[in-house]
């Protein structure tokens, strides 16, 4: 015979209440900081290149960690930020660096994601040539 042992509604309600209070308490200071945390677009210093890479499959900040580290591993990459909603990595490249599309593709694949597109806003070599 199958015997079930129901969890009383009262106890379930208590747990749900505790959960809500804790989540609200955690979220409140974070909400207050939300306005301040909005990142301003990074201004590109003179001579630096910039590339936007659309990366497919990234869904949360925790998963951006390995991806950003992979981009940072490429010689010449100065800074990387990731916009979750657009799935876009914004990468700042040092003057004179030779970062190729293949370097970027390899970084994305090693991070266990798929490449969407690569768009150079300013290539370091073109910037150096004054274009």
């Amino acid at each position, binding site marked *: 015979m199958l015997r079930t042992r129901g969890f009383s509604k009262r106890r379930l309600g208590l747990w749900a209440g505790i959960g809500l209070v804790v989540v609200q308490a955690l979220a409140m200071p974070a909400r207050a900081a*939300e306005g301040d945390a909005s990142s301003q677009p990074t201004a590109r210093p003179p001579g630096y290149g910039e590339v936007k890479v659309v990366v*497919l499959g990234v*869904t949360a900040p925790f998963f951006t*960690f*390995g991806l950003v580290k992979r981009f940072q591993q490429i010689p010449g990459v100065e800074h990387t930020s990731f916009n979750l909603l657009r799935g876009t990595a914004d990468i700042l490249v040092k003057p004179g660096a030779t970062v190729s599309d293949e370097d970027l593709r390899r970084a994305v694949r090693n*991070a*266990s994601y798929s490449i969407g597109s690569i768009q150079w806003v300013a290539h370091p070599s073109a910037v150096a040539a004054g274009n």
Partner: protein
Amino acid sequence: MTGISLGIRRGAWLSGGLFALLALVLLTVPARAQITFPSAAPISAGNVIVRTQPTVTEYSGGLQSFYDENIVLYGASPDLAFILENKSIVSNSGNIVTNGKAAAFTATGFGDTVLDTRYNLYEVDGVGSTFRIAPYIGIDMPTGMDNVNNAVPRDLQPASGEWGTREALTSSWQTLFWNAQALIGYQNYAGSGGFQTGSSLLADAAFHYLIWPSDLDREVPSEVFASLESNYSLSAVDRMNGAAISGTGGQLWTIDPGFLYSTPTWGAAMTALLPILQQYRGPGAARYDYGIEVTFRYSFFTYHHW
């Protein structure tokens, strides 16, 4: 780029059969109090995630169990990951009744270790979404203490002392605002010193819902998720010298609400384990009242990988 762009890797021929299998997994739903089960979530090659999960469970009759499970995930390649799980400390305490006389007991020591290998078999990536299926196989190693207190039965020792295997299929469907995960698996044990843990069928499902922040159109520093997990196990009875041990085996189904705070490098979670169904084979089982699990995880990076 227009709309959702799908980067479909691996043979599309796999999709029909695997989607059908996933549907079966979702219908089967829930597994054991092995909360926060291995998922098919991505891990970068060279990424190491260390997680510690102290868990307290209360049983009827005053039995209490505490253990701290430490988990190390390593991305060996973009598709291959190794997962090492070790119960660094297990402590069971309560009262044992012998000849009508109750005596307090404690059995504390090192638990066993499991090494899993997970392979990312199928993957569909979009902007802010990914669906993955990954089988994994694991080996249970008897690294723990299976006889720290002669006065208590083998079930209550910190470790089983047995070699074992487990095989599972896990899947994850993640988006920016919610994640769904499911696992179906099988565990069996080789037996040791006349004792044999019963084999188990495991079925888990989890749903995480983003509750903060609402604006993701920027570099997001952290997130808070509400989570609801369901864990179900169907086990054969444990045996001592071939004889069934009463009160072991059967079914346990828990529903586990909780929340999770996560940043790019670390995260913390708290989850309650609430039993909604438990049925054991024979009298004498300590019934599961509730459990509380806290999880801390930290991510770091090494450039060593395949």
